């Protein structure tokens, strides 16, 4: 097994440029997530890797081999689609056996199907039809079908997005365990940043047909290179730092500490005072948007997480005053132009 590389991949659909000279290395045996908003080109990229789409320029390589001219059938990649695409007229067992027929002797196919069903934790559903399975079970059968041929690379197209929130969290874990056990190079497309952060070894953030940043989940979350990445991965506040350069400071809500009425800020920490615009109950905490004092009319409110107990003590109704302590030391900073560009896009 070798690492998968994309070189100068370019793809356009009519006037729309889906991918603009993308180069990327996907480490072998690792779980890589392609993450980005809809229309960023992540699905096109997956389809090009799979061979379902031809790039206009560029190459897909596995180790030294050039896969670009090969049709999907010749690539030995396993694919799980968003819709699962389980054949409704075949039982779960027959779905898994579908790709094995003619490649293995019958007895081995039978054993392989059993093994796959055990692997995904569904030993008893062999004779059921897809319509008789729950969404989560269907997803796992699709997964079993994709890995039954021992593919070199496993490609997952938003595999969890059609599931209920609870099932999704459970399957995330299962999928990661399975990937670890098989040690198979895996590429998953998702638009859900939480999914990417929790599951991936390696995250590729995409934006408008380009790669915005690659790195470990921690890298991406803690050191986002652009305001886009910072904003897309989790919530973040862009606070003008008042410096002559006109830069902005990027602070995540959980890094901000709300101060009690008489509480003094820690030394070296800046304080931001303002009034509550809105408080959203989230169970363990409130996400409060605060309008800073002396802010210009079009300034965005600052988001901060206030623990539920403290919030009740502070009685955070609309227009209530609140002081915030910003984190000390060097936090993330971006030049103002970068932020403006980002704002123009998202509005």
């Amino acid at each position, binding site marked *: 097994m070798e690492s998968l590389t994309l070189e100068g991949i*370019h793809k*356009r*659909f*009519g006037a*729309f440029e889906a991918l603009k000279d993308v180069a990327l290395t996907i480490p072998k045996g690792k779980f890589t997530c392609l993450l980005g908003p809809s229309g960023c080109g992540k699905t096109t990229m997956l389809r090009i890797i*799979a*061979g*379902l*789409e*031809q*790039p*206009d*320029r560029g190459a897909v390589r596995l180790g030294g081999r050039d896969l*670009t*001219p090969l*049709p*999907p*059938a*010749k*690539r*030995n*990649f*396993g*694919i799980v*689609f968003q*819709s699962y*695409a389980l*054949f*409704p*007229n*075949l039982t779960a067992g027959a779905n898994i056996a*579908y*790709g094995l*027929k003619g*490649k293995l002797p019958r007895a081995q196919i039978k054993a392989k199907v059993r093994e796959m069903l055990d692997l995904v934790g569904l030993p008893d559903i062999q004779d*059921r*039809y*897809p*319509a*008789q399975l729950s969404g989560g079970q269907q997803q796992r059968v699709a997964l079993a*079908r*994709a890995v039954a*041929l021992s593919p070199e690379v496993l490609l997952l197209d938003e595999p969890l997005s059609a599931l209920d929130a609870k099932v999704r969290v459970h399957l995330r874990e299962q999928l990661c365990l399975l990937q670890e056990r098989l040690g198979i190079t895996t590429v998953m497309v998702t638009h859900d940043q939480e999914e990417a952060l929790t599951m991936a070894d390696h995250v590729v953030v995409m934006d408008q047909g380009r790669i915005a940043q690659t790195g470990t989940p921690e890298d991406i979350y803690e050191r986002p290179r652009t305001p886009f990445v910072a904003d897309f991965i989790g919530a973040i506040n862009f606070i003008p730092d008042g410096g002559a350069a006109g830069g902005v400071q990027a602070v995540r809500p959980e890094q901000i500490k709300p101060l009690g009425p008489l509480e003094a800020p820690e030394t070296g920490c800046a304080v931001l005072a303002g009034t509550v615009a809105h408080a959203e109950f989230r169970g363990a905490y409130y996400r409060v948007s605060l309008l800073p004092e002396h802010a210009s009319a079009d300034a965005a409110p600052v988001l901060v997480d206030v623990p539920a107990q403290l919030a009740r003590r502070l009685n955070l109704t609309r227009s209530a005053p609140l002081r915030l302590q910003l984190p000390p030391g060097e936090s993330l900073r971006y030049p103002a132009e970068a932020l403006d560009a980002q704002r123009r896009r998202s509005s």
Partner: protein
Amino acid sequence: MPDFEAAAYQPSGTAAAAVPRRRRRWGRAEWLQAMLLLLLLLGMTVLVALPLASLFRQAFLTPEGEFAGLSYFRAYLESPALLQSLGNTVFISFMTTVIAVPLAFLLAYALTRTDIRGKSVYKAMALLPLFAPTMMHGIGLVYLFGNQGAISTGLFGWLPFELRIPLYGKVGIIMAEVIYTFPQAFLILSAALAISDYRLYEASETLGAGKLRQLLTVTLPSVKYGLISAIIVCATLSFTDFGAPKVVGGPYNVLATDMFKQVIGQQNMALGAVVSIVLSLPAVAAFIIDRIASRKQQAYVTSRSTPYAVRPGRLRNALAHSYASLIALAMLLLLGAVVMASLVKAWPYNLTLTLAKYEFADAAAGGLTPFWNSVRMAAWTALAGTFITFAAAYMIENIRILRAIRQASYFLAIVPLALPGLAIGLAYIFFFNDPANPLHALYGTMAVLVLANVAHFYSVPFMTATTSLKMMDKEFAHVSASLNVSWPRFFVRIALPLSLPAILEMLVYFFVNAMVTVSAVIFLYGADLKLASVAIVGMDDAGDTAKAAAMSVLIVAANLLARLAYEAVSALLRKRTSGWRSR
């Protein structure tokens, strides 16, 4: 979704042009697919394009092969008799549509928007005319309202009064055409009414709209395209029908009977070709309107629409029952009269039962042979037609190369929808009877009849197949490819089983229509290959109305048997595959 296929062939900017564009080289599968596509296009050309070209050559060229321009058309327009027929045909078509569409709408409404019992029985009764040749509607009317009709004579004199209508002529034709087009309009309107979005009714109700306003603002707009479709179908079918005017038209001439006279009576092929082109014009126009309308409709109902929920209403149900019973009764009465007439010694004088009429002993054609010829032809049409249409739809839907060929084949597949049977029949004569044609040997054989029928009824099964294939998850083929499974195996293992209900539907559609059709085959049958529907026309012409009735009954019986077999197999299939569908 962007059109990937189109994008792949678009020229890109200069930067891209500098680098040679990557195109996956064709493997064995692609060459095979390309061969099959070429075969398909060739087949469609022989089936549709070349016969049509011959028809046009007849209408625009002199027998010596010189361009005649519009001179034949001018000759046509200068003939007052033919112009009179054109006016008559337009009148018939208009009246049929004005009567049949509201009648069908009411029944469709009664069966989709109420919770009355016996809906399936009412529906079956309403669809009965589909199983009979149009001549039979005329014959039935003759036995009810003709000179010796059961109703016109006041139930053979049992009643103290008579009930006579001037049947022979426009009244009879319009009545027969209404019966003929009613089930077609009913099917279209039922489908349209069934998919209305209930949320719109709830919304209009919460906004305080009354029943009338709901009808005008919700119901009618939501079935607008269905209505357009129904109107077009009724108008074109009655415009081009040949069977009913032949039987009850009397001296009232319409284009279809005119054309028959020109071709069979006077051997005037050029004028026949001209009339058949004139006959096709409204259908072509209607066809274009319908295509535009149905394209717009797709956006109307979304996947989040909720089905119509019927609320209790006793008066409404009583009205619905009465109306549906009335229609069912009328259909049964008509069929009953024909069956009855075929079983009695001499209507209306001697009503003792006999099977003599079914022996066809002294009829010109030999006994039951025409009937069995028809059954054989229908069976072959069903098999060949289903095979060809399904294969074509599958290739057009699933092969991703050679887009131009696929589009051309698609176009040729929907053209027959706009062609009346008489035009197809005539086009086939011109094409296959040409000694220069290598396929000339087929002329007068069963094969040419089957081909004409396949071409004539191609479009609807093709749409059925296409719809069924479109409903399949697009990713199925991709999964299959990624698992390195060949596409013939995918076809046999996945696509075919999933399409089986549609395939059965196509089989029975081809069979039933081939059994009842007369227009496409009346020019084409060989001397030793007389068909049941043609025999009906002949026997009726010769005054053997009772025998014509008997032959009609046989056709209906064969069709009902085919339909029952279809229902039985479908039920079995549903039972066997219930695992796929139910939770």
